């Protein structure tokens, strides 16, 4: 019998619960050298290599490259196993952003003073209906319908914006329940990609990636957000920018808007912009 190799992992109590209990076989739903995902009762749980973004639904390891996963894995007793590898929960961490009273009083990220920020956010805004963003800024649940599932990939950019908004509103202590409820309903109805669904539900309870948390911590402490914001914007293709946009909307940041690339067949309603230019 080949010896088994234990790979230590750090994760949140929520993920630890998902991988506790009696061993059962689950499908591997996505795999790469830096991350592999298993479907545990509808939730996507990730096994992450050292340089993968630390998603709140993931088991973080210090391995540079993950062992190759097959089609199925065994989950239970605090571990996720495939082949001769057991990825075992050895440390509990909190991916949640705590209540940050300083957010309310914080300086907005200045529009126009930070080119990379403006460009990234503009790119994201171009993909999403302006009206929906405006509704989200107002905290209207209708924004969810317009944004959820919008954009492609494992985590559609509309979902990222919603997630960034939820985490930030919660940390700032501002009401977000109606939007959160709408998100839960629509997610339950299968309206978006499953990984994104998992992440949105975690966002509703304040859990997010460290890069967004760092931006919020910097704002709360009254420090310059530029270093943390660069790191956030560098996450994924547009995920980081999506989170940043959602976060800015949650705090009523004035955002510069460029209209030069707007499509011609835009409805009157969509053009109504209540955000400051």
């Amino acid at each position, binding site marked *: 019998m080949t010896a088994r190799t234990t790979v*230590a992992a*750090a994760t949140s109590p929520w993920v630890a619960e998902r991988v506790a209990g009696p061993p059962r076989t689950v499908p591997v739903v996505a795999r790469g050298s830096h991350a592999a995902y298993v479907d545990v009762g509808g939730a996507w749980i990730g096994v992450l290599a050292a340089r993968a973004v630390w998603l709140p639904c993931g088991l973080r390891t*210090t391995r540079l490259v993950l062992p190759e996963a097959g089609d199925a894995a065994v989950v239970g007793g605090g571990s996720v196993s495939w082949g001769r590898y057991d990825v075992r929960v*050895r*440390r*509990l961490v*909190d991916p949640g952003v705590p209540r940050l009273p*300083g957010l309310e009083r914080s300086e907005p990220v200045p529009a126009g003073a930070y080119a990379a920020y403006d460009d990234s956010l503009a790119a994201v805004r171009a993909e999403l209906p302006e009206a929906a963003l405006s509704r989200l800024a107002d905290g209207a649940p209708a924004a969810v319908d317009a944004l959820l599932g919008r954009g492609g990939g494992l985590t559609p950019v509309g979902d990222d914006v919603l997630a960034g908004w939820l985490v930030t509103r919660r940390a700032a202590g501002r009401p977000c329940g109606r939007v959160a409820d709408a998100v839960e309903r629509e997610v339950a109805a299968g309206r978006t990609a499953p990984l994104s669904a998992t992440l949105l539900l975690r966002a509703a309870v304040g859990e997010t990636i460290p890069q967004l948390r760092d931006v919020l911590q910097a704002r709360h402490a009254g420090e310059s957000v530029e270093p943390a914001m660069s790191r956030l914007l560098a996450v994924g293709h547009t995920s980081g920018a999506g989170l940043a946009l959602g976060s800015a909307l949650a705090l009523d940041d004035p955002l510069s808007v460029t209209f030069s690339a707007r499509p011609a067949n835009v409805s009157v309603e969509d053009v109504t912009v209540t955000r400051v230019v």
Partner: protein
Amino acid sequence: MAEHVEVRRGSYADSVTLMQVSRDVSSVGGVETAMVAMATPLNLELLEDMGFEVPEASPTDMVVAVRVRDGLDSAIGLEAVESALAAASSGPMVGVEEDVAARTTGSALRRGDDAGLVLVSVPGQYAFAEAMDALQAGRHVMVFSDNVPVEQEVRIKTEADRRGLLVMGPDCGTAVVGGLGLGFANAVRPGPVGIVAASGTGCQQLLALLDAAGAGVSAALGVGGRDLSAAIGGLATRQALRMLDADPATERIVVISKPPAPDVAAALEDHAASLGTPVQWALLGPGRPDLTVAAEELLTTLGYDVPTWPTWGVPSRRDCTSGRPDVQSRRGKMGLLRGLFCGGTLCDEAMLLTTDELGPVRSNIPLSPELALDESLTAGGHLMIDFGDDRLTAGRAHPMIDPTLRLEHLAEHAADPATGVLLLDVVLGHAAHPDPAADLAPAIRSARAAAAEQGRDLPVVVSCIGTTADPQDLHRQAEALAAAGAWVFASNAQATRAALALLTGHAPHSRAEIAEVADRRSTTSAISARKERPDVQSRREGLLDEPSIVAVGADLLADSIAAQAGRVRRVEWRPPMPGTGNDLATVAADPLRENANAEAVRRVLGTQAMLVDVVPASEALGLSPGDFLHAGPPVTWELAAGPLRGALMGACALEGLAERPEDAVPLLESGRGVTLDPCHHHGAVGPMAGVVSASMWMFVLEDADTGRRTYCSLNEGLGKVLRYGAYGPDVLDRLRWMGRVLGPLLQYAVRETGPVDVTGILTQMLQMGDEAHNRNRAGTLMLMRDLVPAMIASGTPGDDIADAVRFIGNNDHFFLNLAMPTCKLALDAARDIEGSTMVVAMARNGTDFGIQVAGTGNTWFTAPAEIPDGLYLGDFGPDDANPDIGDSAIAETAGLGGFAMAAAPAIVRFVGGSVPDALSTTRRMYEITLAESSRWTIPALEFRGVPTGIDVTAVARTGILPQINTGMAGKVAGTGQVGAGLVTPPAEVFTQAVAALAAATRARTVGP
């Protein structure tokens, strides 16, 4: 019985690893006993006690002693040692892509590291230097090491306070940051409680209970056992409170400790009252609530339900509420309580509860001195032993790792009919034994069975401190112990009360009773009122967010971090040179040192040397015939080696003081009319014998900014030359020609061309495969390029010019005599900077090797020079070689020569070794230098600057000696060069230098 004792010089492994190796080897079939340990005085004593012959060895050597059974070959033991050592070898070192591991904390942190915390677990007397490295680099520190002198603790914490950093420790065995358990700690869920703990196992009890209640911890910061004493004044506690208060995720802080010194307590309470986060004081002492009560209060104020604390197993036979247990000795007295503990605070807690109920308890950590146990650890009456106490862990691993001693006592007490109840703690978590129940359960079973055979029921009560996420899994361990017949509790206080109840027949207090009693007691768990959060925004300190760790010391701690998916890099630490420990700590504590060294480096790197003139030594240095300078530290004719004597003899003839060189001997012996002084004392340097006399022409190097000057003679060429001690007629003829033709021609050329930027030529040389000590070819050619045009236009007869150009062109070492004074010019800029530990000169006179240090003035630290190791010319061999000689080591002192070997891999053809050796030599030198040159860079190392500024404290700490490339002179005067090779200074010069620096520091810091 076959015995084998051997000493492995320079081998090192930490004590915990070696104890494991010793145990593994001892358990191999055929091996009677074995000990593998560092040869500290204590270990050598133990070796002697074991009946081995004690070898000559120092604490930096490893001693291997094996005894095998009669008739067997000791080789089986040695094989076992090899495989055990190999198996114990640690994980990847810092900088895994390089072949030279970091040897000090300072070096590790300089490697562009983002580590948020340094974990120090080297032996206590060496911890200070590592901790200061960390603080100097702006990182928090955890000092797991104990036996750190209190003055050093004060110094580290004062320094940390100044920089806004946290020192956890010394003697801090437990911390949790970012969920990462450091030292002996538990896997606990994240939550709103911040713990500040002066006690390890006390902290662990609280972690376990909070986790069991679903509450969780934002961080647990240890402050070391002494922090709250009057001597330290709670410096670390204050910092920890500040950090936790600033953390938005921490809603409540609890401080666990014995009661602090009264002044300290008052000051801290004031400080706590000024914070925005409520602080609860869980101070364990007579008349105060136990830790479980403290946990319950904490939970209640946070709004959590207080659970029923888990228990496992059935109380032994007798229900303790139904009357007197029959657990009595034959004499009809109440049985005795025997507590066998790993955790000091758990033992304290148990003793306090027991004292209240049953009266005094004897112990090795008694509540008052008259209750102390003697070395036998036995007494009539109730007793409790802390097996983790220092006196019981000398030469033995901590009981949380190695249960052997405690299990022996368990068996003894079990067999004693007077024992009424056995009370134990089992502490789980990272770094602890991977399966304590595996050893303890059978021992409990045997103990109870042995008692049963004597007709006694022996209850065994165990507190099992841990969490479900711990590697050992709390439930599995507790169930295994319960299955063996123990009554197991998650709460140590409850376990103690249960044990007391079994003895006395009284029911353990109900929770209500406990609470009532707690209320009646002093208000140590006072909760400071919540205040309005100040306007200043708070900020979660990076330390609390899962920092990456640099670990120096016991591998076990670094292993435990890696096993929790934490990022950890290891320092490949070794004990410092013998005898330097205290002095190193003194120098590390010197408040001047950091800035002094920075200034020294700045001056050295900022010096630009220009060749401005070439003049006779009589003019440049005021030498008269009969005045001679030589290489190296001061020496007399009597003590001078062959090459130096030969050179002096030749120089006497050159100056007309003797007809022939041989005739000069009586003159030199008598010393009449002759002066002998180091070149260094006159702003000069000389290669090999380095003899300078009045008529020799000297290069003049000048520092453009300050006008300071240094000097060096002209290089005669290779083979039989004066500097190698040859003094034949052709040597003297050549010297006269150099004085008559070459010197004046060079003078003209330099004055005509204008100052030559020698520092700049050195920069280019390194890009062209020269290292400026043994390879100077490119430098020589570049010099020629600069000066030949003016030489040609000088009006000197063409033949003379041709001779001169040919002479220079044939001598690949010509440029050496410019490289050397350039290096001296830069290093002299750093002389006399008080508090600096940088070497400003390394020089050899053929007998002794001497160094001078920036912070110790003109003092030479000397010891006999070594013979270089390398390749020999022709038929020469090691017997022909003279010890190391020359001022040319000034090149290495400035970062060239051996330090820049990576720029000149071809050198290995002359000095021996391989090309990878050349690269790793330079890399190794980074471990002992203060900085990297901004100007002199090495292409093969991605243009990294050469290692500059040898730090004597780094040499002493790492044992890495500066590597010098050098020519070898024949020891018989007149032989000439016999080869080239590698050599290091004798280690003692650095030991002396460190001692002198320490004395200077003490003299400076003591005083009015």
